C-alpha cells in the first residue's frame, strides 16, 4: 500500500507553533472523554451483566415470596420491651430494605407507634448503602457509594467479598445503635414538648 503511493519514506512531524498547541489542546480534550469512555465500557462490560442477572433473580424471588409477608414482623416489632429492640432496628430494617427496597422500605414504619417512627426511618435509611455490597437490587440507583470505593480495591487486585461482607455486618451494628439513640432522643423531645404544651 505504502509502495503503491510512494510514501515509504514520508514521516509526518508533530504540528508546531500556535496551530500545534491548538492540536495538543484538542487531543488533551478528547483524551478526557476517551478515558471516561474506557471506564464506562469497563463498567458496562464488568459489573453490569452480573448486576442485571442478579437483579432479575432477586426481583423474581421477592415477587414469589411476596413482600406482604414481612408485615407481620412489622406488627410484632411495634411492641415495647428490650428483646424487640434488635427486631425493630436490625431485623426489620434489613428485611424491609431487602424486600421493599429504597424508598418503599420506609413504609414499614406504619406498623410502629409514633415514637418509634423516626428511629426506624433512621435505621432503615442508613442500611440502603451497606446492603448494596452483596444485594445491589435494594438500591440500584445509588450503587457507587460502595462501588466507587470497591473499584479501588479491585484495581489493587484484591477480592471484594471480605469488604462487602464486613460492610453488611458493620452496617447492621451501626443501624442498631442509630435506632436506639434516635429513639432515646425522640422520646426525650416528645416528653419535653408534652410538658410544655
Amino acid at each position: 500500500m505504502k509502495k503503491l503511493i510512494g510514501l515509504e519514506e514520508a514521516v509526518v512531524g508533530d504540528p508546531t507553533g500556535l496551530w500545534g498547541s491548538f492540536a495538543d489542546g484538542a487531543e488533551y480534550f478528547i483524551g478526557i472523554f476517551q478515558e471516561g469512555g474506557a471506564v464506562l465500557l469497563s463498567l458496562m462490560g464488568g459489573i453490569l451483566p452480573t448486576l442485571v442477572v442478579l437483579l432479575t433473580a432477586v426481583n423474581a424471588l421477592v415477587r414469589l415470596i411476596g413482600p406482604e409477608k414481612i408485615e407481620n414482623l412489622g406488627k410484632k416489632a411495634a411492641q415495647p420491651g428490650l428483646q424487640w429492640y434488635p427486631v425493630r432496628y436490625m431485623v426489620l430494617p434489613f428485611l424491609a430494605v431487602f424486600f421493599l427496597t429504597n424508598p418503599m422500605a420506609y413504609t414499614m414504619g406504619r406498623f410502629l407507634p409514633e415514637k418509634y417512627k423516626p428511629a426506624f426511618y433512621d435505621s432503615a435509611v442508613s442500611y440502603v448503602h451497606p446492603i448494596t455490597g452483596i444485594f445491589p437490587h435494594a438500591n440500584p440507583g445509588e450503587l457507587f457509594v460502595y462501588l466507587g470505593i470497591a473499584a479501588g480495591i479491585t484495581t489493587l487486585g484484591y477480592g471484594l467479598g471480605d469488604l462487602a461482607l464486613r460492610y453488611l455486618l458493620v452496617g447492621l451494628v451501626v443501624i442498631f445503635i442509630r435506632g436506639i439513640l434516635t429513639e432515646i432522643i425522640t422520646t426525650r423531645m416528645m416528653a419535653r414538648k408534652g410538658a410544655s404544651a
Partner: protein
Amino acid sequence: MNGINALLVKIGRSVGGVVGTLFQAGRETVDTVIRNVIPFMAFISFIIGLVLTTGIGDWIANGIKGFADSLVGLLIVSVVCAIPVLSPLLGPGAVIAQIVGTLLGVEIGKGNIPPQLALPALFAINPQVGCDFIPVGLALGEAEPETVEIGVPAVLFSRLVTGPLSVVIAYFASFGLYSSN
C-alpha cells in the same frame, strides 16, 4: 379424563405464573438499569475520566490525602458530613457520597490511601444518608405531622454522634482486611 385435564390446567397455570413472574422481574430490572444505573455510570465515568486525565486528580488527591489516610482524618470528614445544617444539603440522591466514594476509590487504586481504610471510609463519607429525605420517609411510614416535627431534628442530632461512631466501629472491624501483604 376430567382429572387429567384439571391437572394439566393446574400445571400450566403454575408454570405460567412462575415464568410470568421471572419475565416481569427481568422487565423491572432492565427498566431500573436503563433509568437509574446506566445514567449514573455515564456520569461517574466522565468524572473518573476527568480525574485521571487532568491535574484535578492530583489536586484532589492532595486535598483528600490528609483526611482519608488516617482514622482522625476520616473522623473529621464524618463530623463535617453529619453537621445538622449540612447533612440535608449533602444528602440528595447520595450524589455527593457517590462522587466522593468514586474519588476515594481512584486514590485507593493508586495506592495513596491504604486499602484497609476502605471500610471506615465507606462510613465516613455517608453519615448524611437520608437526611434530605426525613419528612418524606416519615410520611411513607404514615407518621403524624407532630412526629415529623420532632423526628427531623432527632435524626439529625443523632447522626452527629452515630456518624463518627460508625467510623470508629468500622475502623476496628477492618482489622485483618487487606493487610496480609
